[in-house]
């Protein structure tokens, strides 16, 4: 299931929902991403997240489908927030249920790495001096290309 929302989320409730979701699960890996309070620019006060409604959900579903073909994925949950975000806010959640830990670790990391370079979200950093669109990082492209 995929949610793109302005509201915050509860990782423990998401974990419980994954745990309750069916038999055969022997491993659950979850990842929660936060807005760093030491940004790329000095004096960042917060972020604004823009996205391409419709395409975002379609791209993330494609990543879950790809993960399900490559590894044992019983269930996957992705939540991504949009709109204004404060420092240290939760921004993204990925949870994967598998029979065994290896598949759950790999599928969760793949979905997260690929999301960063292929899902149409854009971050803007808000500082006292003004707003700046964040540039895509070479390190994120490298992490994503490891899975090709």
């Amino acid at each position: 299931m995929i949610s793109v929302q302005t509201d915050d989320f509860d990782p423990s409730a998401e974990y419980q929902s994954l745990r309750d979701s069916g038999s055969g699960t022997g491993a659950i890996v979850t990842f929660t991403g936060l807005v760093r309070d030491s940004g790329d620019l000095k004096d960042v006060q917060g972020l604004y997240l823009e996205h391409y409604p419709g395409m975002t959900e379609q791209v993330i579903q494609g990543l879950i489908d790809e993960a399900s073909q490559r590894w044992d994925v019983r269930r996957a949950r992705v939540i991504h927030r949009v709109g204004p975000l404060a420092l240290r806010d939760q921004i993204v959640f990925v949870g994967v249920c598998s029979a065994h830990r290896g598949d759950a670790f790999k599928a969760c990391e793949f979905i997260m790495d690929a999301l960063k370079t292929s899902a149409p979200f854009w971050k803007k950093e808000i500082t006292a001096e003004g707003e700046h669109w964040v540039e895509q990082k070479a390190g994120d492209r490298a992490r994503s290309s490891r899975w090709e």
Partner: protein
Amino acid sequence: MSSETLTVRFFARLREELDTEALELPAEPGLTAEVLLTQLAARGGAWSQLQGGQPVMIAVNQTMAKPSTRIHAGDEVAFFPPVTGG
């Protein structure tokens, strides 16, 4: 949207710098994403950055596409900077 036109959408930095969220343009036969970018860049000013400027990502009907992707009437084409979510 009429059947002879296509929609072009812009996001994030491009949307702001072009001061344009969406355009409706005539769907000429043989059109590709690259030809569309060339035509838009020819408007000059901020539009020039669509060619030879910072990288521009292309989506056609909400799927990632290439410069050579064919554009047809009724398509939704989007141009945007490299994505930075997560």
